[in-house]
């Protein structure tokens, strides 16, 4: 640690330039990473919203309706099914038209059909569910907005692919920029590296101080980026609360773990900090390794 600090102190402008590059890269990466995470979470949330609504014939026994419900739940493609009985439908109708007593006189619970509101786990299951329902007996009508669902599927897939490409590009550019920056710094030390090679230093001995210094700067930059980000989130939290009003939770699937990203919590913040620190350490190390390679062929 003392040698790292000594090296930084003796070449302050070069070290500060490397630090700034790392800081801006990591801060931008952090903003994009969190934005993309929230986008993914929002997409996941929206994808559970579209539903199929199936209306049964008026005299359909409840057991038949429950049988269809249970079969759908057992299929593994359905997130939730809500049963609206004739009385429930009538109560909803009354609530919606409470200011229009004339409409209420005309309608009774007997004429309203029972229904199931089906929320699929993914929009791609909806056509399949609709087809299944159409083949069942006692069905009066199956409603789902095919066109809207198709467009949402295309949109979400496009956004996911674009995010992946953009993120890959960001990582690549970060490494290229950092490598170039570190190359400039090491170019000033070309003579020193040549000397060390000629007096019998191993490649590891020569690389170590540059990699350690870059690692230190990377972790410091990522810590500072996270600190500023956390302050910004704290400052904007009233806005975020009103923006996401009505949404109970947002989550993203990380391998086999479902991480809740909204409401904001310690696990999410810890994951962000760990991710950005790891990312900063990796790109700094990789950039240093590539940069020192150029001058080790003596």
């Amino acid at each position, binding site marked *: 640690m003392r040698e790292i600090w000594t090296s930084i102190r*003796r070449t302050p402008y070069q070290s500060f330039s490397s630090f700034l590059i790392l800081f801006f890269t990591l801060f931008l990466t952090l903003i994009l990473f969190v934005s993309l995470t929230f986008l993914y979470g929002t997409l996941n949330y929206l994808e559970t919203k579209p539903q199929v609504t199936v209306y049964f014939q008026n005299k359909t026994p409840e057991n038949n309706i429950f049988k269809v419900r249970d079969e759908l739940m057992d299929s593994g493609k359905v997130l939730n099914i809500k049963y609206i009985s004739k009385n429930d439908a009538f109560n909803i109708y009354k609530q919606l038209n409470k200011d229009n007593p004339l409409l209420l006189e005309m309608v009774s619970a007997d004429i309203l059909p029972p229904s199931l509101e089906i929320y699929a786990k993914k929009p791609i299951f909806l056509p399949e569910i609709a087809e299944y329902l159409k083949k069942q007996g006692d069905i009066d009508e199956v409603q789902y907005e095919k066109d809207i669902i198709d467009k949402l599927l295309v949109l979400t897939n496009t956004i996911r692919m674009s995010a992946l490409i953009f993120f890959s590009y960001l990582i690549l550019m970060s490494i290229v920029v950092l490598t170039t920056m570190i190359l400039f710094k090491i170019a000033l030390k070309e003579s020193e590296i*040549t*000397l*060390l090679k*000629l*007096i*019998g*230093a*191993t490649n590891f001995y020569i690389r170590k101080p540059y990699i350690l210094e870059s690692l230190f700067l990377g972790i410091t930059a990522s810590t500072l980026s996270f600190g500023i980000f956390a302050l910004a989130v704290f400052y904007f939290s009233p806005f975020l609360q009103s923006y996401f009003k009505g949404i109970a939770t947002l989550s993203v699937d990380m391998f086999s773990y479902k991480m809740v990203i909204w409401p904001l919590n310690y696990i999410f913040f810890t994951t962000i900090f760990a991710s950005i620190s790891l990312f900063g350490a990796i790109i700094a190390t990789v950039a240093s390794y590539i940069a020192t390679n150029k001058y080790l062929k*003596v």
Partner: protein
Amino acid sequence: MITFDKVTKKFPLGNTALNDVSFEIDDNQFVFLVGQSGAGKTTILKMITQEIIPSSGSIIVDDFDVTDKNFSQKIELRRKIGIIFQDFKVLVDKNIYENVAVSLKVIGADYSEIKNKVMAALELVGLSKKTMVFPVQLSAGELQRVAIARAIVGDRDIIIADEPTGNLDPKTSWDIMKIFKKLEGKKTIIIATHNTDIVNSFQKRVLVLKEGKIIKDQRKGGYEL
């Protein structure tokens, strides 16, 4: 011992730096390489450290066959050799002590060994009272003393110097050569130089090069091209 046996070096653009050169240098021998610019002096020195690989012939340095295709002990070889350059090549962001110590740090020496040996080397070159000074604060002669201290510290039995007095005034040049004189008989010393006065006064073995060939090998020679 250093043995060059029919060593030739042709560069890709057609230039022949060395042409069928053969000689032997015994342990602890003091040798001058003299010749005009482009005669091949620096090429010989770089071949000893395996910076340059010959096109043909063989080179043995202290039992290391550096021309062997499977030679993989470059680091061990270079840890036996101390190099002194015409442009000193001191590390500007390290003080004198650290500059000399780096020669021992690369071989993994511990703190107490480094301290003892570095101070002994600095004492030899007359810089023991300037350990914390940085290169920017030193004269050219003092910088070359630092380079010599770095080259002789530790178990580096072969000292090669490429024009060590090339950037120095005559008086400083003599002061530097006095240090080499102190090392005589303790290390193998090979000095490439244009300095006729020094070569003539030292009366040591002189290998004279011309256009990549050794034209003279005098056991106690002077500067005669």
